[in-house]
């Protein structure tokens, strides 16, 4: 024990400081990446929720997002224009007005 205390063998100060610096950098890097991933994940969950609710609106024709828009349908040489209501936000569907 006494020998251990009196021993001169150790890392140099520069080595020790470098090690501390590298460890700090590694920790900061990991923390930053985890935070970013967490934010990305949170955004993805929110987007999924929005998408799900928008798909529901679009499929059930509830939640009108726009009215009296026009769609053109060409059959052979004849082009027909229909006035439609638009449903949904993130993704949209449409239905003939009054249909």
């Amino acid at each position, binding site marked *: 024990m006494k020998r251990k205390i009196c021993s001169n063998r150790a890392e140099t100060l520069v080595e020790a400081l470098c090690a501390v610096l590298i*460890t700090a*950098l590694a920790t900061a890097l990991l923390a930053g990446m985890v935070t970013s991933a967490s934010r990305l994940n949170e955004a993805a969950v929110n987007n999924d929720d929005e998408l799900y609710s928008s798909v529901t609106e679009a499929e059930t024709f509830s939640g009108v997002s*726009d009215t009296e828009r026009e769609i*053109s349908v060409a059959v052979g040489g004849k082009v027909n224009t229909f006035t439609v209501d638009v449903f949904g936000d993130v993704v949209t569907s*449409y*239905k003939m007005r009054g249909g």
Partner: protein
Amino acid sequence: MLRKKLNSKRGVTLLLALLLFLICALVGSVVVSAAYTSAGRYVRNKDSQQSYLAVMSAARLIEECVTDMSYEAAYVKIVEEVTQPQYGLIPLKDEDGNNVLDENGEIVYVEGITGYVTSEFVSYELDLPNLVNNRLFEQEFIDKLDICYQYHHTPDEVYSGAPPVDYASDISVNSDELGIPKVVGQMCLSCDDNADEGNSHFDIVVKLWEESGANAVTMKFPCRVTPTHELSTESGDNWNISYFTYGIEVEWLSPTVRKGGAE
């Protein structure tokens, strides 16, 4: 020398710190790439849903147009009967109804009506009014329906030289204004020449798909054909006209929808 270096414990702190850095970098990049993958999946999912909704909206629009339509056509058989008197010599009658005799005792004849002859003239007319509530189809489609009617529903007594129907047309639903992908497709009369049972030769088949080829849907609109028979007459003093109408009314019912069918 190498063994000594490997077993040496000098500078190990730095090495351990570098190892820790490497592990942190690896773990961090795995976590971040997983999050990016998740975000990418959202975009793909959104595009896929939008493509599906575009096709189904277009299908619904076309369904409403087709199921509102009806088609009527008829052959009218016109029978004209004209009754005309036939003239000849008839005995002259007195007031009591007896034959008048001349001075020689012979019956006196005068010109008069000896009877009636009825002449009959038969002709046919084809009555092809327009497609009712047509908001979609071009004149060529209506012409093909007319030909289909003439080919399959002409009364036996009337010659019809109409050929079997073969009709197909491209469909394009352009919803650029809404930022929805374009939907294209094809429609045709089912054109089955052997399909006498159930009159399925008036069936309309519509295939739609998103322009990229995704989310195809096929709709088959079965038809209901109702025969109609009517008789109306007009008459005068010595003529009578009868109109025998042999018609059909075609309605298209809600379609059977199945996934797939892109060209």
